[in-house]
């Protein structure tokens, strides 16, 4: 196959090569820029989701020794003799709500993961323990759960 583009050696050819390379580089840079801008656009800047820090009620709403499931918040609030603690009901496997049983701990209906009373994995495909959230008291004396503040299973909150 012969080259029929009419290219000749010399300063013209060199200039043409330079312009072609610059042009190609500009187009590639432009495409990359647009791609980056598009990807950035797809990530939302504001989330109209429920706040991650919210009051769940007065301490006396939770009787001693009780485990209360708050379905709207997808978490359990416990009142133990050592203090309050809150455990997420979102299974760490694929996000289903776990059920709680005073004797057997937590179990997930989706794929059969089982957790002990402190949310540690006993069996099943769940890769991590259930999340523990930090607690505090609001000015009104209500228990406040902070889902951004993860705590260890030895955490107890004295109200």
């Amino acid at each position, binding site marked *: 196959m012969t080259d029929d583009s009419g290219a000749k050696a010399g300063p013209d050819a060199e200039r043409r090569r330079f312009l072609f390379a610059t042009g190609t580089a500009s187009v590639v840079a432009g495409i990359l820029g647009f791609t980056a801008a598009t990807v950035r656009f797809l990530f939302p800047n504001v989330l109209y*989701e429920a706040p991650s820090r919210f009051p769940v009620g007065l301490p006396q709403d939770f009787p001693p020794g009780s485990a209360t499931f708050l379905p709207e918040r997808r978490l359990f609030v416990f009142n133990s003799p050592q203090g309050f603690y809150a455990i997420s009901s979102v299974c760490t496997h*694929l996000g289903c*709500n776990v059920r709680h049983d005073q004797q057997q701990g937590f179990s997930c209906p989706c794929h059969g993961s089982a957790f002990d009373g402190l949310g540690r994995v006993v069996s099943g495909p769940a890769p991590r323990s259930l999340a523990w959230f930090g607690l505090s008291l609001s000015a009104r004396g209500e228990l406040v759960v902070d889902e951004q503040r993860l705590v260890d299973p030895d955490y107890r909150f004295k109200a």
Partner: protein
Amino acid sequence: MNWASIQRAERQLRSSVFRVGWPRTNKDRAAAMISSLFLHVHPAKVRPASLRFSYSLGLGLISLFLLLVLTVTGVFLMLSYTPHPPEAYRSMKDLEFVVTFGTVLRNMHRWAAHAMVFVVFLHMCRVFFTGAYKPPRQFNWVVGVGLLLLTLALSFTGYLLPWDQLAFWAITVGTNIAAYAPLVGEQLKYLLLGGHVIGPGALLRFYVLHCVILPVAIFMLAAVHVWRVRRDGGLAVPSEALPSPVEEGPAGAFPASTRSYGLMALTYRPAVPIQEIEPDEEVMSWPHLLFRELILLLAVLVVLHVVALSFNAPLEEIANATSTPNPAKAPWYFLGLQELVHYSALVGGVLVPGLLVLGLLLVPYLDPKLRGVGVWFPPQRRLANIVFGVLAGAMVALTFVGMFFRGPNWHWIWPWAR
């Protein structure tokens, strides 16, 4: 105006629309195919072997017909659908109780979608078992893998739209599987949902993906797929595997198997010796191919109508993030994955499907030897067919286990014991 002038005017009008009238000669039959935008994807003539139903089972065509049915029913469904919770769920109730033929419309869309996933899978099996991905069709197999993935993505994004419990928890499980992808998993889930939870933002994203982005993509890819079937010389036939004594001709736009009988002068080089395939051994596409296609389309429509009139698409109560049904199951075509995920999310949700897709993409390049092409289960390809059959069978078996043998808490349950 007399009768003769009316007839003349009618003839003029008709010939302005259809260049070739109802064809009565072979030349006109070829011209009818070539002169129409919608028919010219067909060759003027086809091999009798390609027409045999027992060879292709019509699976590719059925997939295409289902895609068309889904497009038409989908557009009508869009007219009475609001992609925002909780109106989305009310739209389902409207379709059921208020819209004329709304239930049938939704049923047809639902069952055609399920059927398409199934038929596309069968089509892939057919192409593998007949070795039809061999040169020059390697890349069309890759395009086909893309179409399989797009079919699954379309079905999955559509699954959320009714906004019932079934939809919500299937998508919860599905998107959380995506989150297990290494490095980018969490970001991928965030991008897919447009947030951390399945809410209005996620529904809108799935709606636009389902109704605009993915349909455009699948139609473009399907067009490439069909175009290449034609360019690569139609369906694979056994004679292609014979050694060709013909010298290499000019390379480029016309691969070895190109045959253009409508524009016969343009044939650069035949794939097989001229004496192997004479144009005369082939039959005219009009009516032999066209007639079969119409019959198949009719059969697809009849079966779909019977199913849509007999069985209602499932609809559970409105989506409720606080109450997980027990068991919560993904859409049926992902139940094989969910069964694997039940053992290990990383292995089952990421590693196995990733390797399966990679393997599928590489199939035609790992196994390019031209032997046993164009026949079912040729003995020369026994090993390849056994490997593929075992893998496909395993996926089917896992799906069956997930569908029928898994009860509350994903515990094993015999289907007859419930």
